[in-house]
C-alpha cells in the first residue's frame, strides 16, 4: 500500500482562465527534452553530404560576405579589430539567437502530430528546439577560436562572461520564441513573419557594424533595450577586448524577463487548446 501514496492524481477540467506555470511537470519530463533535442540535432543534417559541417560553413560564409561588403567595400569601422574577427564574434551569438528563435517559433506546428496524439508539457517542444541550437553554436565557437589563433588574439579570463551572455541570448530567443510558437498554432501568419523579424532584428543589432555608430542620446537608450545589442557587444569584449557592454544591458534583461514570464503564462494558457487548434 506504500505505492498508493506515490500514485499521482490528475484532475481533468475545462480550461478556464490563467493557470499556474507548473514547471515541475517540465522537470519530470526532462528526459523527453533531452531526446527531443537529440532528435532535432540528429535529424537536421541527415542526408546532407556535408552533414554537420553546415553548422560551420554557414557562419563562415556569412562572415566572408560581410567582410567583403561591409569590411572592404563599405569600410565600416570595426573597433580597431580585423573585420573578419570582428564580424564573426558578432555572428557567433547572433546565429545562436536567430536559429533558436526561428526553430522554436515554428516548433509546435511542425510537431503537430505529437500535439494531437500524446500528452506531455508542451513547453518541451520549444525548449528542445532552442537547446538544439547550442550544438551549432559550439561548432561555430571552435571556428572562432581558430580565427583568434590566426589573428593572434589571445584569450583572457573575460571569456567566462560568455556563459551568462550566451544564456541571455538563449533566454531572449526563448522569451520571444514561446510567444511566437503559441501564436503560430493559431495564426500561421507568424511563420511568414519570423524570417522578416529575424532579418530586421539583425540590422537592429551590431552584428555587421559597431555599436559605436549609434549616435548618443535617446537613440542609444532605445538601442540598449535590444538585449542582443548588449549580448553581441559583450561577446566582442569578452573574446577580443575593447569596450564592455553598456549598462543598458540591465534594462534589456528586465525586458527579457517580463517577456519571458508573460510568454510562459500565455503559453500555459494556450497549451490546453493546442491539440484542438493546431
Amino acid at each position, binding site marked *: 500500500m506504500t505505492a498508493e501514496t506515490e500514485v499521482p492524481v490528475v484532475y*481533468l477540467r475545462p*480550461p478556464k482562465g490563467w493557470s499556474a506555470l507548473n514547471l515541475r511537470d517540465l522537470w519530470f519530463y526532462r528526459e523527453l527534452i533531452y531526446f527531443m533535442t537529440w532528435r532535432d540535432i540528429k535529424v537536421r543534417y541527415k*542526408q546532407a553530404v556535408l552533414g554537420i559541417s553546415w553548422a560551420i560553413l554557414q557562419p563562415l560564409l556569412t562572415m566572408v560576405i560581410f567582410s567583403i561588403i561591409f569590411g572592404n567595400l563599405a569600410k565600416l569601422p570595426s573597433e580597431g579589430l580585423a573585420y573578419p574577427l570582428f564580424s564573426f564574434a558578432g555572428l557567433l551569438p547572433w546565429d545562436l539567437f536567430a536559429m533558436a528563435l526561428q526553430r522554436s517559433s515554428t516548433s509546435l506546428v511542425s510537431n503537430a502530430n505529437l500535439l494531437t*496524439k*500524446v500528452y*506531455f508539457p508542451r513547453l518541451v517542444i520549444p525548449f528542445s528546439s532552442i537547446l538544439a541550437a547550442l550544438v551549432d553554436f559550439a561548432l561555430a565557437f571552435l571556428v572562432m577560436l581558430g580565427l583568434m589563433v590566426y589573428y593572434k588574439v589571445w584569450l583572457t579570463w573575460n571569456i567566462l562572461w560568455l556563459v551568462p551572455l550566451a544564456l541571455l541570448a538563449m533566454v531572449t530567443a526563448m522569451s520571444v520564441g514561446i510567444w511566437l510558437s503559441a501564436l503560430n498554432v493559431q495564426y500561421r501568419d507568424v511563420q511568414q513573419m519570423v524570417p522578416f523579424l529575424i532579418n530586421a532584428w539583425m540590422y537592429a543589432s551590431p552584428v555587421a557594424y559597431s555599436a559605436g555608430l549609434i549616435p548618443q542620446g535617446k537613440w542609444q537608450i532605445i538601442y540598449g533595450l535590444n538585449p542582443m545589442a548588449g549580448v553581441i557587444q559583450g561577446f566582442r569584449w569578452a573574446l577580443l577586448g575593447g569596450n564592455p557592454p553598456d549598462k543598458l544591458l540591465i534594462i534589456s534583461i528586465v525586458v527579457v524577463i517580463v517577456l519571458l514570464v508573460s510568454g510562459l503564462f*500565455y503559453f500555459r494558457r494556450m497549451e490546453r487548446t493546442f491539440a484542438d487548434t493546431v
Partner: protein
Amino acid sequence: MTIAVRVENLGKKYRLGTQLRTYNTLRDAIARTVSNPGGWFRRLGKGLRDPSANTIWALRNISFEVEQGQVLGVIGKNGAGKSTLLKILSRVTEPTEGSGEIRGRVGSLLEVGTGFHPELTGRENIYLNGAILGMKRAEIARKFDEIVEFAEISRFIDTPVKRYSSGMYLRLAFAVAAHLEPEILVVDEVLAVGDAEFQRKCLGKMSDVAQQGRTVLFVSHNMSAILRLTQEAIVIDKGQLALRAPTAKAVDYYLSQGLSQQGERTWDPSEVPASAWPFCPVAIRARSSNGKVTDILRSVEPITLEVEYRLLAPLTGLRVGIYLSTTRGEPIFTSFDTDDPSMYERYTSRPAGHYISRGVIPPDYLNEGRYVVGLNASSFNIKRYFQDEQSLTFSVDAAGAPGMQWPEARLGVVRPHLAWYIDAVGASQPDRLAPVG
C-alpha cells in the same frame, strides 16, 4: 476497491474545421483589435472563439468510473466520440465541461508510431518514441531487447525506419507502445496492424497487460477482441454514454443498435464528410433473388449487395467495394466492383453521375447467421474517399441448405454445397452411388 478513473458530465465541443481558417487570420484579429482595442487581450487568451462559428458536441454528459485493475471496453461507431473521450483521458485535449479524476500515470496508444522519425534508425526511434510515450531512459534500455524481439526486426535495428516496410514499421511501433508500463493504459484500435499472426501476438500482449492488474481502457472495432479482453464495456453513441454492461450484453446492444437497417442504409448528403468528395454515397442495400430489399436472405439463393452513389466530379481509378464480416468483427471477404480485370480496364475512369454497383454473392455460400457489410470507395494507393465498416447488417436463413435435416448449429461462416462421392470399397454390394443434383 480504488477508483482509477472517474469522470463526471464530461463534454467536449468542437468547432467545425472549415471555419477555423477564415476566422483565425491575424488580419481578422487586427481588424477587430482596431474596432475594439479593449477586448484584444481577452480574445488573445481565449483564442478568438467566434460565437457564430459552427460548433458540435463530440461528447456530452459522459459519467463513469473505472476501478483499478479493470479492463473496460469502449465501443461505438466511427465518429461516436470514442477517440475524443480517450484524448481527454490521456490529457491530449481538455474537456469543455465536466470534470475527471485519474489516479496514476496514463499511457496512451492513440496511434502507433506517434513521433517516429523516418530519418532515425529503429534503435533511435525506440528511445525517442519511448520517451514521448512517457518511459524513462533506464526503463527503455531495460526493455530494449524485448521490444526488438517482439517486433521481429533485430536485423534492421540500425536501419533508418524510412527504409522499413510498412509492416515492419507498424510492428516496431506497436512493440514500443506495448511495453509501456503505466498504471492506466488507454488503447485505441492498435490491433489492426500487421498480419494475422502479429495481430494474435498483439492480442496476447494486451491480455498479459490486463492480467498484470493494470487499468486498461480498450477501444476497438474488433468485437472478438473486445469480448476476449474485457468483462465490461461502455457503448458510446452520438457522443452520449448509451450503455454500460457486461461485455457480451454491450456488444449485442451495440450490434443491434442503429444497425438494424431493414436491409437498407441511406445517407443524407449532410452526413457525408467533406473528405469524401467527390464520392457521395446514397444507399447500400441487400436484395434477395426476387429483387426485394430485405434484412433476411436465404443461404440457397443469390444475395445481391448494391451500392448507390453519386460522383460529383469524374474520378480515375475509383473502386467501390464491400467488406463482409461477422458481427463479431471477423472479416469474411473484401470485394471491389473492378476486381475483374475486364471491369478494371473498362472503368479506369468514371464520369460524374449517378451509379449503382452491384455484387452478387453466389447461392450456397453463407452459413446461417448475421453479417455486417462495410463500404469502401477508394483509389488504390491514392485516396480513400469513403469508408464505413458497418453500413448494413443482414441475416442469412439456412432453410434448404445442405445438412438441414439435422437440427444442429454448424460452425463456420460458409455453408457450401460440396460435391460428395461415396465409394463403397469392398462392401458386400459394390454399387457406386452418384451424387444427387
